[in-house]
Structures are given as structure tokens and as C-alpha cells.
């Protein structure tokens, strides 16, 4: 099964944990895999290098695995996902100024996204009435849960994210700086960047991603379908290494070693990494901590096993926000990207999903339950709730 050294692309984020631990703490070596982790600076690069075969596999935004397989926004290259690197892990952070405004207009507990979404709509309305610049929010990529989670939250408050606010793509390392100098009023990004903003005293974590949706597949281990077909044994060995690493990474006794390995790759402080892994995040500069064990799920409760419902959810977001039209064919293609069969074949057992898995698999904080076969109805619910036309047009 020798393929020489495998080149695996990644972006320095805590949700690459299983991959970093697998490679740097010996789990891939135990499977006789020789791996080079290649640090990248943009998701576009990761996608292109994976597509062109310059990477054998990569740490990838789950929505990019879907959009790439469907050929949305770029060349169509079928991708397979045999392993989830992490569920959840994002947070919405706002400037202290916006936080004060939201708190002032909130009817109830601002930590409840239903309350904060309505408060945000009030701030947006006030900006409009004063003819002020619209609020600007940063997110990491057009095809990302950062984009979709911000939109879902805003939509719940009656805000049209394409009309009432500005959503801009920002590379994660630029988020904090952009918040500092007022270029954005808030952002949705993964760890460690929310904590970096809080520690710098320029951001307040408003919501964890898991408070918006209880369970979404954030990053995946992605390979080209063709490569996966040609190298089934290598892929299976890699998945086994990742599964072992994911289990290792979440054991409290290993926290120091795991945080240190990740911190070295990310060149950040290991204490900040530890916050994300344990789900104990300082949310305000004054030291207020919020804890949620769903914050980032790496291996437990079946987190690592690809779930086609998640692919359907991603596709529903793509359609809801006008990035592609709805079709049964695309839905089927999207769901086929997530491959629990490859996971099961490599690991041997289906893990228990554990308590706390939402009934519909997603657990959005508002709106009807999600059903993969009823995406049209799901989207109609939101469209009827918020009249207006989809404004995003896809350009080829």
C-alpha cells in the first residue's frame, strides 16, 4: 500500500486537532503512514491543491467538500469524506460596542440567541433610520458554517443578511485586527480566534456555534474520490489513525500533551487551545467563563462518523442562501459525499451517538425540525417568514 509520503493540507485551527495529534503524536506512524502536514493560508488554496492532486487529502470546511463535489462556485471535483475532524467549534464574537447596544435592546437573556437575534434586528433598524453604515460581520468563506450560522441567526431575527448587513470574507488571522480597528462589528470563526479577541479585550463572545445549531459537521478529512478509490488501504489506515487520535485527544489526562501539540502547529499559547478542547471559554475580558461540552466535539458521541444528514443540511444552506438551485439530483450527490461506510470499514464499529444528539440531527435553535427529504418545505418556511427575494445569483 506504499504511496510514499502523503501530503495533507491544513489550516492552523484547533479543529484540525485529530489530524495534528494523529501525525505529531505517532498515530499515523503506528499505521505505517508517512505524512507531511502542509500548512496553508487560505481555504481556496487547500481546495485547489486538493483538486489538482498536490495534496492527497486535507483538513477542509465541510461545506467546501459539498460545493466542490457539486461544482458550485468552482470546478467540479468529487470529494469523499470518510472522517469528521470536528463538530461545532465556532463562535460569534462582537465588539464591546455592539455588545452594549445589543444588551441595551434585549428583551431577556442576551445569551439566548432568540433574544440576541431580535436585539440585532433592532440595532440594524436603528442604523437604517439614522442612515448609518450597515453593520459588518466577518466570516471565513462563502461555503462555510461561519457564513451559514451568522445568516441563520440573523434570519431568525428577521434580518436579510444580503440586504440589511454586510457579510465579508476574512481570513481567520485577520479577524481580530479587523475587529480592533472597527472594520467589522463582529465575526463568526473557529478556535482559537474568538479567544484571542477576548484576551485582547476587543471582543465579546456572544454565542457558541453549538447554541445556534447543536450539531453540525464543521471540518472534515477530505480526499478526492478518485484518489480514495485508488488507495482504499491507505485511506482506511489513515482513518484508523485519526479515530485513535480523536479518542486520545478528548481524554482529560491527555489535555496537556494534546494542547501542546496543537499549540506548536498553530503558534499560539497552549492554554488557549485547551479552552476550546474542553469547552470552557472565557467570553468576556473581565474573565466571565461559559462552559458547554458541545462546544467542539472531536471524537465522542459519534462525532467522527460522517452523517449524510449533515451533508443534506449543508446543501439546504447552499440553496437557502441562493448559492445553487434545489434539485433532487444535487441533494443525492451532496449526501453521497459523506461516507459512513468508509468510516465503518476502517474503524470496524459504528460508535454510539450518545445522549444529547438532537432529534433531527442538527438542533437549530429556532424553526422547524430539519428533514433531508423536505428541503423545499424547510426553505419555504423561512421564505414565508421573511418575505423577500433571494438576492444571491451564482456567476459562472
Amino acid at each position: 500500500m506504499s504511496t510514499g509520503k502523503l501530503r495533507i493540507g491544513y489550516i492552523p485551527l484547533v479543529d484540525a486537532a485529530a489530524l495534528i495529534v494523529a501525525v505529531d503524536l505517532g498515530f499515523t506512524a503506528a499505521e505505517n503512514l508517512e505524512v507531511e502536514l502542509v500548512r496553508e493560508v487560505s481555504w481556496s488554496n487547500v481546495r485547489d491543491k486538493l483538486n489538482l492532486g498536490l495534496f492527497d487529502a486535507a483538513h477542509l470546511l465541510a461545506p467546501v467538500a459539498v460545493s466542490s463535489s457539486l461544482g458550485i462556485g468552482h470546478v467540479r471535483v468529487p470529494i469523499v469524506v470518510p472522517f469528521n475532524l470536528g463538530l461545532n467549534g465556532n463562535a460569534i464574537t462582537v465588539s464591546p460596542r455592539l455588545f452594549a447596544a445589543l444588551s441595551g435592546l434585549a428583551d431577556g437573556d442576551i445569551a439566548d440567541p432568540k433574544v440576541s437575534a431580535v436585539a440585532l434586528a433592532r440595532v440594524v433598524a436603528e442604523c437604517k433610520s439614522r442612515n448609518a453604515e450597515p453593520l459588518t460581520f466577518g466570516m471565513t468563506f462563502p461555503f462555510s458554517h461561519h457564513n451559514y450560522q451568522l445568516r441563520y441567526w440573523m434570519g431568525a431575527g428577521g434580518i436579510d443578511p444580503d440586504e440589511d448587513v454586510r457579510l465579508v470574507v476574512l481570513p481567520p488571522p485577520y479577524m481580530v485586527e479587523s475587529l480592533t480597528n472597527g472594520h467589522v462589528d463582529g465575526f463568526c470563526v473557529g478556535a482559537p480566534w474568538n479567544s484571542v479577541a477576548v484576551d485582547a479585550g476587543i471582543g465579546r463572545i456572544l454565542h457558541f456555534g453549538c447554541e445556534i445549531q447543536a450539531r453540525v459537521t464543521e471540518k472534515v478529512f477530505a480526499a478526492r474520490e478518485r484518489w480514495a478509490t485508488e488507495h482504499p488501504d491507505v485511506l482506511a489506515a489513515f482513518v484508523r489513525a485519526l479515530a485513535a487520535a480523536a479518542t486520545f485527544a478528548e481524554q482529560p489526562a491527555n489535555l496537556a500533551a494534546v494542547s501542546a501539540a496543537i499549540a506548536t502547529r498553530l503558534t499560539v499559547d497552549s492554554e488557549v487551545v485547551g479552552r476550546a478542547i474542553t469547552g470552557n471559554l472565557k467570553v468576556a475580558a473581565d474573565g466571565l467563563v461559559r462552559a458547554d461540552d458541545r462546544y467542539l466535539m472531536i471524537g465522542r458521541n459519534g462525532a467522527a462518523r460522517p452523517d449524510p444528514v449533515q451533508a443534506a443540511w449543508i446543501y439546504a444552506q447552499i440553496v437557502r442562501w441562493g448559492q445553487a438551485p434545489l434539485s433532487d439530483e444535487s441533494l443525492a450527490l451532496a449526501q453521497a459525499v459523506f461516507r459512513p461506510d468508509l468510516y465503518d470499514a476502517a474503524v470496524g464499529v459504528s460508535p454510539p451517538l450518545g445522549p444529547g444528539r438532537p432529534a433531527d440531527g442538527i438542533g437549530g435553535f429556532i424553526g422547524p425540525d430539519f428533514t433531508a427529504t423536505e428541503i423545499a418545505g424547510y426553505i419555504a418556511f423561512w421564505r414565508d417568514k421573511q418575505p423577500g427575494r433571494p438576492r444571491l445569483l451564482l456567476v459562472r
Partner: protein
Amino acid sequence: MTKAQECLAFACTVRVSGEPPEFFALAETRKGSDSSGPGSQPQGGSRDSSLKIAIVDESPIRAAILEDGLREAGFTQVERIAETHNLLARVYAMDPDVILIDLESPSRDMLEQMFQMSRAVKRPVAMFVDQSDTASIQAAVDAGVSAYIVGGLKKERITSILDLCISRFNAFSRLQTELDRAKDALDERKVIDRAKGVLMKAKKFSEEEAYALMRKTAMNENKKIVDIAQSVLTAAEMFK
């Protein structure tokens, strides 16, 4: 041979072999590609000096090299966007026909947003990818550059630009390698000189004798002189 063809030939020779056939086959499923086949050569005569070209590159030296090259080739409207803050606004303000961006720039993801038509975009943007461009895009990614075409521009109009870009990026990275090598050589020189000093002092050697001993040892042990010199320095450190 036109200059553009030279560039293409150069780009082809530097391209490392990857797996273009797969990308190629998959790209064929795309609709709307225009008529020119995979084998078409860029035409020197089809260059259009009126094209407005934006360069997004965090390396000012490389951007300057590229800008010079484009100007030499007759493209007069070339502008570097140095500051990546608010990149999209700057791009909209400049309204270029072609955007060239280095792959080391995290800002590249910002440009991806242009694929999503929004009210702020005046003209459609596409990335320079198509079935006939497989070789070009692979060469471009290898060289570390990516191109975006604005406004439905026919791609053969920018083939020469991209090729020029690839050759300049490669030239830059060659320069960088040479510079690194020169620096390494200088560092090696310093190590050898220091080791000579150690030997001259410890064994009362002349400079020539010290060097001859290290050279002989290196030959006997089939190692580089600098490795022997480093061993001498390490040993000297331990005997201090």
C-alpha cells in the same frame, strides 16, 4: 517564437508532473467553455494593452518584478494593491479586468467572495479555470499564483498574462533560492573559519594545516567539510 510562446514553453518546462488528467476529465463536465482547444497557443497579437490588471501580492519585490514584466509586454494599466485590508472595496474601486494574486496571501479567500454575485459587484468574476487551462492552472499553482478574470473576458486574452506571471513568479523563486543558497554558503564559510581557528589554537596549526586536516577527515569519512567543522566546534564547546 513570440514572447508569450517563450513564456509558455518556459512554464511547461518548469511544471512538475502531477495528476492533471483527472482534473482535466472532470473539468470537461463544465458547461460554457469556449471554442479554443487544449492545444491552442496564446497569440502574441491578441494582447490587449488596454486591459486593466490588478496585482495582489504581499511581496513588494515580486510584485515589482511582475509589474515590470507586464509593462514590458505592453500592458500599461497595471496596479498593485498593496494593502489587503478591505480588499474587495479596493478591487471594486479599481475595477480591473484581471486580478493576479499570490497564493501565499490569505486574502485570496476574500476574492472568492466575488464568485457570489452581490449588489456591490459590477461585473461577474470567474477564476482562470477551464478544460483548456489545466496545464496553465497547474503551472500557476506550482508557481504560487492565481488569476481571476472579470467581466466575462475571453480567456485567450489573458493566457499571455498568466504565462508571463508564471515565469516571473518562477524567476522570483529561483532568485530566492539562489539568495538562500548564497546565505547558506556564507554561513558554511563562517563555520569552517571558526573550526579552523579552534584547530590552529589547539594544535598550533597554521591556517592551511587546519584546513587540510578537516578536508582529509571529510574525505576519509565521506562527509562535507562543513559537517566536520561543525563537529570540531561541538567538540570544542564540550571541552571548554
